[in-house]
């Protein structure tokens, strides 16, 4: 039998005050950072604004991007480089409602319009003159339009060629120059036709997300409701399956986990978006798992070891389940590390919350939930003990 964790006898509850001081100092530091230093950044989903992911045909510096955005007063936008080669960026722009009103635009669509302005501002003069000459952007034509374009020279082979070009573009993100197309198997005639009717834009918009203030408020309300109901649901379930004391201790542990993770979150440059909220809910569900496994053991042991001191019994229960706690935590964290490394930018924030949250959740189920339960027992001294 391969065993990493031999039968341990660690007096976990002895360290409860150390754990409290550790947790609370981090939570308080986080709260201070959030309240006084504006540490918690709301993402586009909730604050409204626009998030554009764009790929350029040539490497470009962040400074250069800011210069291009300055004529529309958005040079302060958050710009993050993704991928290599300095060709792919995520640009996030928000503007306060007051500013939007000042620009006298339709408030409902302000975010959408701002997104379009950002894309316009990023284009080069070459792009603009090509558009002015009535040329179409080869990097944004769909295969139907391409087929339509190619039909005069390729006849019934046009659809196949269009598909081929679109596939190439999907793989590359952007067609950088005509030679690339030639290398990808586009024939002389077709190439001549494309050159005549199209231009190769300097950038391709990979994704664009705009959320107006109305939609942002709606999404935030939804997120609040989801978190609140989830916490309530768990409290009720635990109170029914165990006792109220367990339910309250579990809930306090969850509040601890959420605040702790938020605190760590507030010290990073990350932003709260809808997937991050989903991450928080999952972490809540996962952390309560850990707590329940320990509580379940306490409940079991209370039936068998009637005479044992409550604190001792808790230590025993934590030690008995320690193997499981660490193995499950470990495998889950491993899976998440893989997601974190290879899952890509799109779900990176979400995975980050889970990763940090699960580490915190594992810690808290040992060092927070049991002390809470212990103090409840100390304060209320239930006559029948903690036995159900």
């Amino acid at each position, binding site marked *: 039998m391969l065993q990493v964790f031999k039968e341990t006898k660690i007096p976990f509850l002895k360290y409860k005050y150390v754990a409290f001081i550790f947790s609370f100092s981090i939570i308080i530091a986080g709260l201070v950072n959030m309240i006084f230093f504006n540490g918690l950044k709301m993402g586009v989903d909730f604050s409204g604004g626009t998030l554009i992911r764009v790929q350029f045909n040539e490497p470009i510096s962040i400074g250069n991007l800011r210069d291009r955005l300055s004529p529309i007063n958005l040079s302060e936008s958050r710009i993050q480089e993704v991928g290599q080669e300095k060709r792919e960026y995520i640009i996030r722009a928000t503007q306060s409602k007051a500013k939007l009103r000042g620009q006298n635009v339709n408030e409902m669509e302000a975010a959408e319009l701002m997104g379009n302005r950002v894309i316009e501002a990023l284009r080069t003069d070459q792009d603009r003159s090509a558009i002015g000459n009535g040329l179409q952007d080869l990097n944004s034509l*769909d295969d139907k339009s391409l087929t339509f374009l190619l039909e005069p020279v390729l006849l019934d082979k046009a659809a196949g060629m269009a598909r081929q070009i679109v596939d190439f573009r999907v793989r590359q993100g952007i067609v950088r120059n005509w030679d690339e197309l030639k290398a990808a198997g586009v024939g002389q005639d077709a190439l001549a036709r494309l050159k005549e009717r199209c231009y190769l834009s300097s950038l391709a918009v990979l994704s664009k997300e705009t959320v107006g203030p109305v*939609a942002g408020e709606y999404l935030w309300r939804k997120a609040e409701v989801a978190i609140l109901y989830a916490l309530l649901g768990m409290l009720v379930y635990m109170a029914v399956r165990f006792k109220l004391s367990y339910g309250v201790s579990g809930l306090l542990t969850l509040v601890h986990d959420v605040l702790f993770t938020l605190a760590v979150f507030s010290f990073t440059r990350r932003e709260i978006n809808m997937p991050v909220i*989903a991450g928080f809910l999952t972490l809540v569900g996962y952390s309560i798992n850990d707590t329940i496994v320990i509580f379940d053991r306490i409940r079991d042991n209370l039936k068998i070891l009637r005479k044992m001191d409550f604190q001792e019994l808790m230590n025993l229960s934590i030690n008995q389940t320690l193997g499981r706690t660490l193995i499950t935590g470990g495998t889950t964290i491993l899976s998440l590390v893989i997601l974190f490394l290879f899952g890509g930018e799109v779900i990176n924030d979400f995975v980050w919350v889970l990763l940090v949250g699960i580490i915190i959740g594992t810690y808290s189920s040992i060092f927070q939930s049991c002390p809470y339960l212990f103090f409840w027992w100390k304060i209320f001294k239930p006559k029948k003990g903690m036995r159900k």
Partner: protein
Amino acid sequence: MKKNLLARSILVLVVLGVALILSYPPKKIPLGLDLQGGMHLVFQVATNDAINVYTDQSIGRLKQLLSQKKITVKSLSKGELGHIKIQGYSPDDEGKIDSLLGEYLKDWDTSVTSTTASATLKPEAARTIRTETVDQAMETIRNRVDQFGVNEPTIQRQGGLEGQQIVVELPGMRDFEKAMTLIKTTALLEWKLVQAGPAADEATLLKNFGGQVPEDMEVLRGDSKRTEGGYYLLSRVAGITGQDLSSVHLDRDERDNPAVGFELKPDGSKRFAQLTGENVGRQVAIILDKKVQSSPVVQNQIMDRGIITGGLRGFGLEEVRDLIIILKSGALPASIGIIENRTIGPSLGADSIHRGLIAIIGSLIITMIFLVFYYRWAGVNALAALILNMIILFGTLGALVMLKIPVSLSLPGIAGIILGIGMSVDANVLIFERIREELRAGRSVLSSISFGFTRALSAIVDSNVTTVIAAFFLLGGTGAVKGYAVTLIISIGASMFTAVFVSHLIFDLTIPRRRKVEKLSI
């Protein structure tokens, strides 16, 4: 403890078989917008427009009734939203107006004094108008979206039964700009008599009218894409509108430019004949969404058919095609504004699929290696349960697709699967650790297994149920987040079955019954 081995084996095989059949072919589970690219759009319907239109209609009817009953009022005007104000009548008419309003303005709360009367649209009537407007807008959008050739678009109301937001999802849509124009164009098409213009500015336009816009006229600008963008003075009342069209088709103008040909319904054709017959030699403006497209001079009376040309610059073929789609689907009952737009290009989606697959396979492999390394043959058992778990997950997704319940596999959905793998392993770990404890405590192999399973059960159930509770409240979220909740919930359900039922069965099947077992590979 080894009861019903056969029955249990059959049950597991049946579940496996059904799940395999349901999950085949795996391609039928649609990919989410984030994976295949596409658009997620939320529109807000300006339902105030519809309230204003209704108020205008009511005022129009009131005017008619008042003149029929020979009651003179000085002003009959629209106040703030949903209010009508009547002023300047003789006090003797108070009673008549009161009974008239009571009889004909059923949807309105009215109050009449000797000098002024006012009517306020009843809240429930306003609500009905708003709801119906959103319904109509959804119908129009659906008609237009059906022309895109997108697989399984969804069009939904957001914010409850009376929500004024419409969510449009277009998976696989590639031509983003076109989709946006086709959905958002109000497509209010009107033909109005030109009283003056086009002129470069309003002052020149109104020179012959004393600088004032007469009450029955209005000023509109030309569409900058079609005309020179000047000002037109037009009759306020439209001769005919888009509602009078019976059909539209692709046509050509005299210079062989593409144009929209149209035919009129009998009633519209009567009014059009009147309009053109009385105004030969004058201009009639064709107006789309309050912008003049062209203002041809009427050559002779037109009865029931005609063409819409693209003014000076002419239409492109694509533009005419799009316009025909829009006109066929009818006008939107109110303008709509885009309040949320998530557009994902296909290359980002392809990249995400690639990354998602690496992540799933990577975490499966790591988990498998760990299980077998740490728990030996029992780990292989858990592995079998894990694989069955995945098959059940895809089978359930397949079944949901067949039942036409909208599910899709999004990137967060993949994260849900990976977490589900973690949860399923957790259940096994709980059981195995418990079995090990029982073994250490000196129990026999068989009773250790049996105790392990029963004692771990409560922890497994309780911990999984709480996770489901958390995931349940994500089901109401937007597309991607919802996809995450769906896969997570299914995985947890499946893992409870596989870890508790299937693993136990495999133990029972593999451990010899009669011979005394000394060692367990765990």
